[in-house]
């Protein structure tokens, strides 16, 4: 076949060039955070940006550590995201088990209700939730940060799909061995569905860690705010401190960056389940 080899070569060269420049553009903010957080503000303001810094400093991180709320807010975020992830795994495992393995009247209707919750954007319920939790005297507290997120249809939906594919023979064998529902669930079903559980955990953790709207309105004191709200506050500071901002972003993005880099196969599993985040 003679399909104009020159155009082919040129086409491939163009594709490589386009991809390389796109990759540079997409990765630039990540690189800037990574390198900039070790640079002084004076170096950061130099044109053209010093892409390979000649003088590295830990000053920004020292500054971030000194600004007390940021450390406390880091712990807040870890605690809140940890509790939400654990709770959603538990409630989703139980609900999915009931939907798949237990006798249930109105099974279809119950599942329909779970699916319907996925379609409600958080903004449509955020005002009453704010009023409810303030009314309970819980504004600006840990319980308020986690309570509305202790269950999710997303996790239930993914686990239901996985449980339905569980081999009937294994289940029958477990039952013959005398395993009741509780033992079958925790000793056999859960250990054999670790990849799906990991996928759910990664998603729930990412979205809980990165939450913005709810912590913004339900917390008031710097001591109770999460890292994301603290980061936004750095931007609002009277004297802009880009080095400190970049160091704060680097610290905040480290856990999720590790998840995305090393947990990508789990992320791909849950990509199209649960459209509304």
């Amino acid at each position, binding site marked *: *076949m003679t399909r104009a080899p020159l155009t*082919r070569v040129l086409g*491939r060269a163009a594709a*490589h060039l*386009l*991809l390389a420049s*796109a*990759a540079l553009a*997409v990765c630039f*903010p990540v690189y800037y955070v990574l390198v*900039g957080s070790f640079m002084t503000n004076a170096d950061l303001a130099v*044109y*053209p940006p010093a892409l390979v810094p000649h003088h590295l400093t830990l000053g920004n991180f020292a500054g971030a550590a000194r600004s007390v709320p940021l450390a406390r807010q880091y712990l807040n975020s870890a605690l809140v995201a940890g509790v939400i992830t654990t709770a959603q795994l538990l409630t989703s495992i*139980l609900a999915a088990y*009931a939907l798949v*393995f*237990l*006798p*249930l009247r109105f099974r279809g209707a119950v599942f329909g*209700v*779970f699916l319907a919750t996925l*379609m*409600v*954007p958080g*903004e*449509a*319920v*955020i*005002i*009453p939730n704010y009023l409810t939790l303030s009314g309970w005297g819980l504004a600006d507290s840990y319980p308020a940060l986690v309570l509305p997120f202790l*269950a999710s*249809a997303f996790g239930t939906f993914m686990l239901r799909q996985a449980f*339905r594919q569980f081999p*009937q023979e294994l*289940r029958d064998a477990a039952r013959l061995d005398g395993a009741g*529902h509780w033992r079958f669930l925790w000793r056999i079903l859960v250990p054999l569905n670790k990849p799906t559980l990991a996928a759910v955990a990664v998603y729930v953790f990412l979205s809980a860690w*990165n939450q*913005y*709207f709810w912590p913004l*309105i339900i917390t008031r004191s710097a001591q109770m705010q999460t890292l*994301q709200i603290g*980061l*936004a506050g750095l*931007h609002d500071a009277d004297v802009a401190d880009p080095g400190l*901002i*970049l160091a*704060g*972003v680097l610290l*905040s*993005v480290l856990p*999720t960056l590790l*998840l*995305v*880099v090393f947990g*990508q196969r789990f992320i*791909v599993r849950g*990509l*199209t389940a649960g*459209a*509304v985040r």
Partner: protein
Amino acid sequence: MPTSPRPPSSARPAEKALAWAFLLPSVAVFALFLGYPLYRTCYLSTHANDLFGAPTRYVGLQHYADLLGSAEFARTLATTGLFVLLTVVPGVLGALLLVLLLEGRIRGVRLLRSAFALPFAFSVAGASVVFGVFYNPATGVINGLLSHVGAGPVNWLTDSGVALVSVSLVTIWLNLGYNVLVLSAGIGSIPPEISEAARLDGAGGWRLARSITVPLLGPHLFFLVVVSTINALQTLGQINILTKGGPDHSTTTLNYSIYQKAFAFGSSDFGTASAQAVVLLLVVLACTAVQFGVIERKVHYA
């Protein structure tokens, strides 16, 4: 869809009770923090409120009528539509271009795909403050680069003609990782025989993409358009951090308007904000309905 394994009809009462016990935690959370507040939002949207947001008297559809007649709200809706266009179209098309280029049997595909997925790790707040540093008119890298090619400094966040574009850029970058992952998964699910057959027929590069890959990616593209639209409708952080809806309301979208009316600057106008929240809910539900309608008819989803 295969039917789920049916338990025997003579199910023991204890098992039935167990089923409801297992469902209870989820159902309780949904009822308290989703069902009840959904009703409550509708309730608040039909009531006037005092300065502290407490409902005072029933006003029927008055808040909705006020919104319909308000030039400010019309502008908010127009801004929202523009923001959806500015983020969804480039976001989906850009990701499509990238995954198509990645298909060209290029070295280091895995590394590149991982690189494109990186923004997925960033939070709205993190991405916004980083771009806030870029957008700084005096010290930011973007104006720095512009000055090198002789272009004048741009006030990215304080020029009402540019601010919405600046906010859109952050959003596109932030969503690119997810979009690339979805489309890569889509391409991965195309049977290799199909592309091989097309290649044997002499289709390569552009023609392969146009007549085989893109049509087969249709459902994924459609899914992305719907999800990105819903995400754009729910955007808050970028706007609150970078522009606070300004300058001159040029970045006040529907969702941001809800936030402003209900929570910003000591405002507690829950009635008006709730009416706007109901409008947002209806728009999101319409998007979801379109998604389900089309997908039910046209494609099989994993």
